[in-house]
């Protein structure tokens, strides 16, 4: 039996609260603007139909499902050490609070958000988007049930519902896999966009979810794991760091191979889209944000200081934050290539350009959603989980 005291927890102080409040407060302006003016102040449109909101949605789904996939796999299938189970509630909570901004963003992206129910009442199961909605809602239901029983178990202080939670975790694995595959498939089946249309895209989405998810689990463990001074804590943090490092390297190699094949194959439209991802208007998000801060720096940190939990947590946090650049670089450049030569100049008007950069409203709404997610997590952590941190954990 181990004890955990607030003093021994890694203190986050007010910073995350202020960050959440800031994002939420500033973003509220964008939300009000979006509700009052509809889609008039956005930069996506006809030729670039999906912008930052769809990209961030994909990123959040990767985090949400990836974290649970990784967690359930290492805890229930690979039986990693027991100290991981102490962050079970945080992992479920993080997944749930990641899902909230994801659904909010995708709803605000719709031309008619209030018609969302039609995907349930009048579904077209020939569309992968329908499957995505249904799987996401199923996943949400499983997540809610899981969290409910985790919290109930914490309240009773015992180990009840252990087998039920295991079953739920195992059920969530194929649902999560299907969800990630479906989200990847939504893009992968679009023959009109050569950069997307590849059978391995769902696989890349799966790898991305694992990388982002393992980084999130690592971060949560470093922040909320029990008994900082104990060797087990360090050992688990190290193992999680190594897992993140391995998945990160594997993902980087897979992406590099895909990139090389794309460039060597030489299909003009596909190469142009890939070139735009690397050297187009968003070059900085690929080279600086993703490769620099999201891959190179974490790899160095995780390799050089695997035994320092704070460093491991920092590296994992970098991966979690910067991974948002990955879906942006997959989704946006693929839409910037011309389906027909000179189409972009044929008729001028808002949304009829083959260019895209999020407007202030789009940034603000994104900030609002992320602030909301972070705020909900902090609030739930504070209200539901913090009191238990002072008591014993089996």
């Amino acid at each position: 039996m181990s004890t955990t005291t607030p003093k021994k927890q890694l203190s986050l102080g007010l910073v995350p609260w202020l960050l959440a409040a800031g994002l939420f407060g500033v973003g509220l302006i964008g939300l009000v603007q979006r509700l009052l003016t509809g889609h008039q102040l956005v930069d996506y449109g006809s030729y670039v139909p999906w912008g930052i909101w769809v990209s961030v949605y994909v990123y959040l789904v990767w985090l949400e499902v990836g974290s649970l996939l990784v967690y359930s796999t290492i805890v229930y299938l690979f039986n990693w050490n027991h100290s991981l189970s102490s962050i079970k509630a945080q992992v479920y909570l993080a997944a749930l609070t990641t899902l909230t901004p994801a659904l909010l963003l995708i709803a605000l992206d719709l031309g008619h958000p209030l018609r969302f129910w039609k995907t349930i009442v009048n579904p077209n199961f020939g569309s992968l988007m329908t499957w995505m909605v249904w799987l996401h809602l199923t996943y949400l239901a499983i997540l809610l049930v899981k969290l409910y029983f985790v919290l109930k178990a914490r309240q009773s202080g015992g180990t009840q519902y252990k087998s039920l939670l295991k079953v739920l975790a195992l059920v969530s694995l194929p649902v999560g896999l299907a969800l990630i595959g479906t989200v990847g498939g939504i893009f992968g089946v679009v023959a009109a966009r050569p950069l997307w249309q590849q059978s391995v895209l769902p696989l890349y989405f799966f790898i991305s979810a694992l990388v982002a998810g393992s980084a999130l689990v690592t971060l949560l463990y470093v922040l909320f794991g029990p008994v900082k001074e104990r060797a087990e804590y360090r050992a688990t943090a190290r193992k999680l760091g190594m897992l993140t490092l391995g998945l990160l390297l594997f993902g980087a190699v897979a992406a590099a191979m895909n990139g090389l094949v794309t460039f060597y194959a030489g299909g003009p439209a596909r190469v142009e889209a890939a070139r735009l991802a690397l050297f187009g208007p968003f070059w900085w998000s690929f080279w600086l944000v993703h490769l620099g801060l999201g891959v190179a720096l974490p790899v160095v940190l995780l390799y050089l200081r695997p035994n320092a939990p704070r460093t491991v947590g920092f590296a994992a946090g970098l991966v979690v934050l910067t991974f948002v650049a990955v879906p942006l670089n997959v989704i946006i450049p693929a839409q910037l290539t011309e389906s027909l030569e000179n189409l972009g100049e044929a008729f001028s008007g808002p949304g009829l350009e083959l260019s895209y950069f999020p407007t202030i409203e789009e940034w603000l709404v994104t900030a609002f959603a992320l602030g909301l997610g972070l705020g909900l997590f902090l609030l739930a952590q504070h209200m539901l989980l913090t009191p238990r941190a002072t008591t014993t954990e089996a």
Partner: protein
Amino acid sequence: MTQTEDKTKAKPGPTRRDFLRGLVGTAGAAAVVTGPTRKVAAATVPLSNVRLAPSVIGEGPVDPLERMRAELARALEKPVDQRRWVMVIDLRKCVGCHSCTVSCVAENHLPPGVVYRPVIEEEIGTFPNVSKRFLPRPCMQCEEPPCVDVCPVGATWQREDGITEIDYEQCIGCRYCLSACPYNARTFDRGLTYVEASEGESAAMVGAADAGTYELAAAHEYGEEWPRDEGRSPVGNARKCHFCLHRLEKGMLPACTTTCMGRATYFGDANDPDSLVAELIASPNVMRLKEELGTKPRVYYLA
């Protein structure tokens, strides 16, 4: 006697058009212009069913528009599932006047950012050896439309006559169909209006008030009234060319076809073997865009 011989014999004497054609001196284009016109004279059109414009009667060759109107009337007498609407665009005759684009915007009350039929311009060569090519691009009304299957709520489907339709009240505005269309033929209605979009200039704009009224007036797409109102369909919807279905059902040709001053756009029922479009799509110089994708467009180009 073959049909061709018959048609050739039926060719009338020189007309005012022939004279003008001679002035222009574009022999290649002239051959194309006379092609469909001659065939009309070969009594493929039951002229008794058509009200011809006075300028046409007695002038000799019948304007292709008149022939297509007659064929449209004939097609409308058939059940819907026996019609196969196609459009043929003769690229050699398109002069890039954009009147089809403008008439489409006017007909369907299209707001800023929504266009059903842009004309793509391509400059070929380097100065001083430069020429221009124009490619009008309506919805291809594909036989295998990629936009239909991806709709999560079944708000878009293919009619029996081949036109892909959108139910504006069912569409949730997810824009998956926009991503899936290989021709970028679908556009997103963001709820803008021309007068509001040019707010700074509208004070000095003559007729700004009337223009505002005009663009807020109801469009008649799919045979229904669609007044322009904030948050109400078609605002927030995917929109696309529908071959002016609402006009077809009233026996009128699509707006782009009637306003094409070069008579470069043809429309009709390809299931009617005597129709102009059926003859044109049998030409050896016919092509369709992105055929390699297997979408089987119903818009053909003569090149």
